[in-house]
């Protein structure tokens, strides 16, 4: 990887709570400008990994490089460039939104006007002097994100940021994150337990299950790992099978007029249709079905669970 683009790199990162391994040999590579989706079911090790990345937990083995330097060499310097929301927002309920932000402003030594800017960015300007204990869940979540954004970090780490947000809030957040990455070159590390939630935002993803990374790469590459299927209903199954065998489709059912065959992409539809029609088969239904992200995600997670059990 180009070291100038390197933001966060982990090698063989492992951590155990007592004897229970929470995270094993996690290798992650997050580059500048990435919106990196980190997805896994509940209890997969997402939050533990995030705590390790931020130095809130010490790995039992492995290394973390942040902005080209080992994290432990300059933790304070790295934290100056990282904004984070881990689990639920850590907010002091007896303080106002402004006072909560003032804590970050003092520690990060940014100009006080940034408080107004991030409150406006997160649509909280009218609640600036309201005590946080009177905030709704969604407002708290937005304030948590505002805290993370206050010092305009190079890397934004958000753990389940959509929690508590209404659909409009989720859409706003999605647009904001895209804009921060595109316009301000911010690198964003985003965790979720729903892959589809990241589909419209993330440029790369990593899937974690049972504490180990099961996939890392682009969503397109993930989709390409799973073949689609052609669903067919014909008037003469026997003749259709012969035509499909000639086209190179194997593993067909021995009988029946309705079946599915694996297909790489939608283009296969026309080739199959043409072959069947020229063989004199009437096709009453022909549809290509691409596995959706949730199916892919569940397949990977279940595979991991099966291998963990065996």
């Amino acid at each position, binding site marked *: 990887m180009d070291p100038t683009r390197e933001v966060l790199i982990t090698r063989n990162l492992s951590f155990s709570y007592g004897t229970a391994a929470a995270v094993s040999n996690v290798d992650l590579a997050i580059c500048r400008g990435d919106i990196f989706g980190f997805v896994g079911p509940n209890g997969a090790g997402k939050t533990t990994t995030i*705590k390790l990345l931020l130095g*809130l*937990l*010490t790995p039992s083995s492995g290394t973390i490089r942040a902005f080209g330097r080992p994290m432990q060499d300059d933790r304070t310097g790295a*934290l100056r460039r990282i904004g984070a929301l*881990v689990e639920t927002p850590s907010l*002091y309920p*007896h*303080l106002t939104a402004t006072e909560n932000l003032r804590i970050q402003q003092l*520690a990060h030594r940014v100009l006080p006007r940034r408080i107004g800017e991030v409150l406006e960015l997160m649509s909280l300007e009218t609640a600036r002097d309201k005590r946080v204990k009177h905030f709704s869940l969604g407002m708290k979540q937005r304030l948590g994100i505002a805290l993370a954004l206050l010092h305009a970090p190079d890397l934004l780490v958000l753990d389940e940021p959509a929690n508590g947000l209404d659909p409009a809030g989720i859409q706003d957040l999605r647009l904001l994150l895209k804009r921060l990455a595109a316009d301000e070159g911010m690198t964003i590390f985003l965790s979720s337990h729903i892959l589809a939630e990241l589909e419209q935002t993330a440029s790369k993803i990593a899937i974690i299950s049972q504490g180990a990374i099961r996939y890392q790469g682009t969503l397109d590459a993930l989709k390409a790992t799973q073949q689609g299927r052609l669903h067919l209903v014909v008037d003469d199954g026997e003749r259709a099978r012969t035509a499909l065998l000639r086209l190179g489709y194997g593993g067909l059912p021995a009988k029946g007029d309705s079946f599915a065959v694996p297909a790489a992409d939608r283009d296969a539809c026309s080739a199959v249709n043409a072959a069947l029609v020229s063989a004199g088969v009437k096709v009453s239904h022909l549809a290509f079905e691409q596995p959706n992200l949730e199916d892919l995600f569940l397949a990977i997670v279940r595979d991991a669970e099966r291998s963990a059990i065996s």
Partner: protein
Amino acid sequence: MNMFATMCRIEFLKLRRTLALWMVVVAPAVVVLLQLLIWTGARGDFDVDVDLWLAFLTNVLSMWAIFMQPLFVALVVTLVYHLDYASQGWPRMFLLPVPRWTVPAAKLAVVATMVVAATVVLVALSLAGTKLGPLLNERIVLQPDIPFATAFARAGKVLVASLLVVVIQNFVSLRWSSVPVSLGIGITGTFLALFATSWKYGPYYPWLMGIQVIHGKEAAAARILWLSPALAIVLAAATLIYATRRDPGLYQ
């Protein structure tokens, strides 16, 4: 040191609108009020050879040292730490770009400042209470000069003697998130002080050190005045080392 000062500012900011700040005034006021009630109801004559300014203060300091101050320290330390335990503030604090030691050190400094402030309030209220004395009981005749220096010196001794308890409470609250544990240590420590007085090493029992510098033997009092801060420094250093080495993600 700049970052430490910043963390202290942050800790004070977090205390806004909390009970902990009110306690700085309320706890000394209760003791002074109690002493004032005792004086008001006193039937006998007051000894003319006794400086009533100092007599009032000494009585107040005795109640403060043996009872109110240890409980005040337990309550304030618990409240200061509970702010972060209750709102999951620890990860947030440890994600600030500051050296780790500054987080617990700022808490310790803030608590110590509050104890100093409460002591100043105690002396000020004591002197004000003494001044009120003749209006409430005509047998009280005050000397014309207010012994400011002696009053603050006596209160200062009690403060110095109580530093060890302050640091013990800090360590307990840092190590255990539970409010009952933190308050329980303070209450038990104060209660056991009643029995520790008859013990050979009783004067050096941390919760008795404060009263010993007022009413104890001179040698023991002198020893306490260096022993309490010395042990407090050692324990504070150990607390900071512990806090620095402990994974911040485990505070909850």
